[in-house]
């Protein structure tokens, strides 16, 4: 029985929740205004194990997925391939910037984090 529940919840978590990344920074701001949400910018680059950990494990977790989809418009920027708007500083990747719908900075987090820590970070961003 336990196994069935687990299997179902695994399937459900795969099928239902998936982080809906905005296609670009500008699109994210437009969408945030419309949906009255904050923006989560993830700065990453290739060959960054911590970024991979975030993508493969933390963002695969349904609690994280739900939290992000509920409260944020997430957008992914590659510091080597994408234009990085002024003010979104970083000393390395991944770096997370949380902005309000007008693009004003609310919070910055440097580096990767495990699931509960990252949930904590998401929750600490003021509405």
């Amino acid at each position, binding site marked *: 029985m336990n*196994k069935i529940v687990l299997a179902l919840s695994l399937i459900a978590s795969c099928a239902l929740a998936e982080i809906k990344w905005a296609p670009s920074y500008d699109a994210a701001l437009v969408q945030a205004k419309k949906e009255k949400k904050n923006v989560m910018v993830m700065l990453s680059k290739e060959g960054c194990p911590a970024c991979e950990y975030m993508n493969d*494990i933390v963002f695969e977790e349904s609690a994280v997925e739900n939290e992000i989809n509920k409260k944020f418009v997430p957008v992914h920027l590659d510091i080597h391939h994408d234009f990085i708007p002024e003010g979104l500083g970083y000393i390395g*990747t991944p770096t997370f910037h949380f902005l309000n719908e007008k693009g004003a900075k609310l919070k910055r987090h*440097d580096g*990767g984090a495990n699931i509960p820590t990252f949930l*904590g970070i998401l929750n600490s961003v003021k509405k």
Partner: protein
Amino acid sequence: MRWITIIVFMVISVLGVSFLQPDEAFKPKITAVDDDTVAVEIILGDQIYLYKEKLKIEDADPKDGIEFTTINTTTKTVDHEGESVYEENPIVMVDLGKNKSLSGEQNVRVKLSYQGCSSAGLCYEPQESILEMPVDTDKLSLITNLSAPAVVKKELPTPKSKSETDQITDVISGGSVWFIVLSFFGFGLLLALTPCVFPMIPIISSVIMAQGEGLGAKRAFFLSLVYVLAMAVAYTIAGVLAGLFGANLQAAFQTPWIITVFALVFVLLSLSMFDVYELQIPNFIQSRISKLGSQRGGVIGIAIMGFVSALIVGPCVAAPLAGALIYIGQTGDALLGGVALFALSIGMGVPLLIVGTTSGKFMPKPGMWMDVIKAIFGVMLLGIAIWMMGRVFDENTTLLLWGGLAIFVAINAGALEPLGEHPSWSSRSNVKALGFLILLYGSSLLIGGMAGATNLLHPLDPFLNKNQEISPSASIHKKFEKITSIEELDAILAENKGKRVMIDFYADWCTACKELEEKTFSDEAVKTAMDEYVLVQVDVTANDDASKAITKKYGIFGPPAILFFDEKGVKNESATIIGFKEPNEFLDHLGAIK
């Protein structure tokens, strides 16, 4: 409860981890070693590592007359998720020379570029810095050969084991596929020598005869080839199908009752090889087909005949063929399935080619030997059945079954029959000797097995004083020792020197960890493979200081992560697994780090 935990640690985590600024993380330094050598060192901050590939040293002023003759480092690298990295401060020796006449003190300028990450979870941007150091140019030797590129980058080979992806490519480029194809070809040849393929001989001869008298050998060969190839196509299709279906069946093959059912099918099939019953297409169908063949001419007609006769002899060859197909199904590889079955049918076709080309002049004479080959197939089928049951039974029971099979074979090979009239060195006496060897081996398997042996190569281990774990294996499967702190882990590592240790980082809030437990660790084959390890589970559900300290110590961001320690208690860097792994991937991984 889970949420309370998370909420509690949300508060803690707001404080967050603070990362070193790049200038604290990497502190480059240059020192003079002797008159014409400088050492460049990068002092790494806490938890910082540097990519070997990204560390570059160049002459910042190529025209200043001072040249770098050799650049050399002996700092050890470790494997970090497939990349060689420096975890200790890299030191690079740069030998200097001058390419024009210089005198007096002059600054040598070294351009250093590097890139690294913090194992707490941040990757820094590429960094660059210029280091300067005064050198006495009078003491530098003059390099006369101006045309040659002066810088020779010399590095001592660093011990590094292969990462997972390298090994996967190795297996693909390696010979195992050829081995399978060759074995199937041989298998096909053997099959052709069973009474099974005999119905095909009248078919092929009638087909070829129908082409008219006085057919040239060339033409006859061509027609036989068409026939054989058509037959091969039929089997290849079967192989591809088995591969495709097998891909989905693979998971099913982990379930004990399905394995048992298949093993029983194999036992039943083997009975037909021992003439307990006969598996054959009714005679009237056989004769109809061969009559049809004689009426139909042309290449296409022959091709159709080949294809159809593959289907009719099918049931007769069924038992071994089903074995081959099930084997292919287990690999879940359609391409391999097609290739293997093609090889098998070409093997089967070789005698037919000979018969066809020579218009039946060469025909194997049926006799005792054919029954021997049939019996060999029967034994192979029983062997496959036992091998499959190995996943259901524990190792000891499987060993007893092998012992039984060996004795069965030995007796049938006449191991205990008197030689009678047969002279020495006749084939009969040789077979008897072989049978006797098998009998001895089988008996030792049975005797050792009854005392609890599990190793097929060392069945008598239980009687040696070594007294190794004759474990009641089933009960110790998957039992992880649960711990939460570095102290506990250190104690376990110290206690288990001489054993290999596998450490699973787990947390209740980690779905991938649960998936690992439910799917991978509970897999029967994985359980068996994990028996070789002392299993430790570090529970970091609390995400408190102790959890953070232990993840920090082992340089992982969080669960799921699986670390491996060797007999000396040293972490096998390249073996670390981050994230979920399917049972078969996990097994391959365990196999690779043996």
